[in-house]
């Protein structure tokens, strides 16, 4: 059991070391995929173990896997696999420094696995901060002025944010110290009901949630996110959006589960509602007039994180199960669309929305996965995001947060309109001139004579798997729903 727990971390670190010392092209090309694959395998294995009723531990109790950890590890693995496998073509054409990129991707996946496996707030913190370090150079990978600017802002804001979370963790530790059992372990904090001082825990909770919310890209601490996501290579944007933000959100959930029994749900709920609604408002305001495809996808991530914050604020089995399903659905759909955006960039040479036209007739090979991914992100059924969004809103109304949910739904509709309009423009509008009347061009003056480019510009299978999984996920019964219910019970069982 312990070996299975240690496997993802050790394997990712080993592959990172391998790519750092070996220059073999095969190793460099496939190390990231292999890392993600190992994470998937151990994640699924641990899910089976956890569903069997045991929580395996390793490394002297520092690592411990419960249903939530196993679920999150699987999310890290699948999203990582989508981004690295789907991103194969993109990286081989754009990367210049061959060795650094795969090493950092492996380290990133290892750190994220460690973050979700750790049964210790401090180790979780160290792992989250380590991802700031590994992704810094990935964001600045292209080396352009804009990429450097994005990387600088990302590292400074991200480090300051998690430093604030560290202060919160310190204070929580101080509270447990005063109660006689110094600990940072989830399981002890969750179950032992330590007599902690509420006023100290209150400050600790506020700081920890604020800090991890910065890393989760929640407004008003989101300003690093669109810059970093738009400048990073496409697979890295996918990894950050689907894995990094989700793991930061996971940290918030864990902190919430620990502090709520001590200080009541009001403080964290208030913070999450504020951050959630602000995130929805900011992304709505900036998506409607957005000019860049990757920034548009980045703001869409802020939207989904805002929605997740609202779900966490609502609490209870329905909202938390929906939130976890949403994490998985959003991770798969968003990493797929980011991968496709990389292919669009490679094929079209730009991600400016105004310069991309009639993609559907010219390049159906990339347009079809793009439109499917966008449909998933927009929340069309049968994609799981539709069901999780509806469940979150319903749970909100049931939980007495009706007014919040009304505002949220209005903002989501604005976002829907903005995203749908941009997507439709890129796919179907004919004139390449922004704002120019498309119909004035005679039909034969456009580019119908050019043969449509049906090539997918990269591996097709990972996108099919990821988007297919998003489509059927909500209907999956048995193990999936049992796992989600068990994980949500870990978080909501205390309320």
């Amino acid at each position, binding site marked *: 059991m312990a070996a299975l727990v240690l496997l993802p971390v050790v394997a990712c670190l080993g592959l990172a070391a391998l790519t750092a010392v070996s220059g073999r092209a095969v190793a460099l090309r496939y190390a990231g995929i292999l890392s993600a694959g190992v994470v998937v395998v151990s994640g699924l294995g641990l899910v089976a173990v956890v569903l069997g009723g045991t929580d395996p531990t390793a490394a002297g109790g*520092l690592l411990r896997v419960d249903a939530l950890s196993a679920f999150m590890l699987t999310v890290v693995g699948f999203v990582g696999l989508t981004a690295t496998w789907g991103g194969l073509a993109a990286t081989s054409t754009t990367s210049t420094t061959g060795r650094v990129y795969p090493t950092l991707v492996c380290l990133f996946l290892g750190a994220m696995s460690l973050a979700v496996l750790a049964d*210790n707030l*401090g*180790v979780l*913190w*160290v792992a989250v*901060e*380590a991802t*700031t*370090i590994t992704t*810094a*150079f990935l964001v*600045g990978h292209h*080396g*352009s*002025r*804009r990429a*450097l*600017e*994005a*990387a*600088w*802002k990302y*590292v*400074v804001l991200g*480090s*300051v944010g998690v*430093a604030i979370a*560290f*202060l919160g*963790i*310190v*204070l929580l*530790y*101080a*509270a447990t*110290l*005063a109660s006689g059992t*110094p600990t*940072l372990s989830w399981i002890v904090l969750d179950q032992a009901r330590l007599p902690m*001082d509420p*006023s*100290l825990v*209150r*400050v600790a909770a506020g700081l920890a949630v604020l800090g991890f919310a910065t890393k989760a890209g929640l407004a008003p601490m989101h300003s690093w996110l*669109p*810059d970093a996501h*738009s*400048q990073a290579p496409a697979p890295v944007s996918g990894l950050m959006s689907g894995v990094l933000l989700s793991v930061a959100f996971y940290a918030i959930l864990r902190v919430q589960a620990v502090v709520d029994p001590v200080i009541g749900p009001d403080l964290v709920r208030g913070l999450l509602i504020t951050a959630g609604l602000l995130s929805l408002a900011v992304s709505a305001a*900036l998506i409607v*007039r*957005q000019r860049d495809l990757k*920034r548009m996808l980045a703001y869409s991530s802020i939207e989904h994180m805002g929605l997740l914050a609202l779900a966490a604020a609502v609490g209870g089995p329905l909202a938390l199960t929906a939130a976890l399903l949403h994490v998985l659905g959003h991770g798969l759909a968003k990493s797929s669309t980011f991968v496709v955006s990389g292919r669009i960039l490679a094929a079209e040479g730009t991600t400016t929305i105004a310069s991309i036209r009639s993609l559907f007739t010219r390049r159906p090979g990339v347009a079809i996965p793009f439109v499917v991914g966008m449909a998933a992100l927009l929340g069309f059924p049968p994609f799981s995001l539709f069901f999780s969004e509806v469940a979150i809103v319903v749970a909100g109304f049931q939980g007495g947060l009706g007014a919040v949910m009304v505002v949220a739904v209005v903002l989501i509709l604005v976002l829907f309109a903005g995203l749908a309009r941009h997507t439709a423009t890129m796919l179907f509008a004919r004139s390449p001139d922004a704002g120019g009347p498309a119909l004035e061009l005679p039909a034969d003056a456009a580019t119908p004579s050019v043969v449509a480019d049906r090539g997918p510009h990269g591996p097709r299978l990972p996108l099919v798997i990821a988007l297919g999984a998003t489509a059927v996920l909500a209907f999956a019964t048995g193990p999936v729903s049992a796992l989600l219910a068990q994980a949500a019970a870990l978080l909501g069982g205390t309320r």
Partner: protein
Amino acid sequence: MAPVLFAELVAFCAGVLLLTGVLIVWRRDLRAIVRLLAVQGVALAFLVAVIGVEARLPELLAVALLVLVLKGIALPVLLVRVSGPAGPGQVETPTINTTASLISLALLTTLAYLVSQPLKAAGSGPAAAAVPIGISLVLFGFMVLASRRHAISQLVGFLMLDNGIATVAFLIAGGLPLVVELGAALDILLVVLVLQVLTGRIRAEFGDIDLDDLSELRD
């Protein structure tokens, strides 16, 4: 250790920490700021050692040595290397003038004492009484981050913020579990290394490390 001596040593360290914090905000010479940060690191290490001796924890003495090497020596040396070949006496113009920033410092220190009230619950004695100094350093660090546009000043602001958090951690809890302490130290070192490399690339690309140049990305 005699209780009086312990109280005096803690107060001395806290005083040095606060004084260096104020001076960092006051001075504009970048080399001087980095030297002050080194002094602050040494004071923090000494504080950890004092707490370690008082609590009879040999583990904390090892941590004190780590803090000394990391914050007193390694990070300042890295920062000096970031500031590069331009030579000593690099001066920057902050966006806030000196008088205003010193007044803000007074206000921030008062604020630190106010917000530290709930933390009193964590313990009593000279160590807990000095916790507001740590919070002050956190706030000073924020102020430097917000008001300075030079890459080195920003790094110093971040490290001062981190020093403040470490001060609070040692005063209020006698430090965190060793594995977390080591991980956190490694993370801080790596963040500064990352920022150092980025600074080098930014200088190569922009010819300067004034962060006002970083304004291409916006909506």
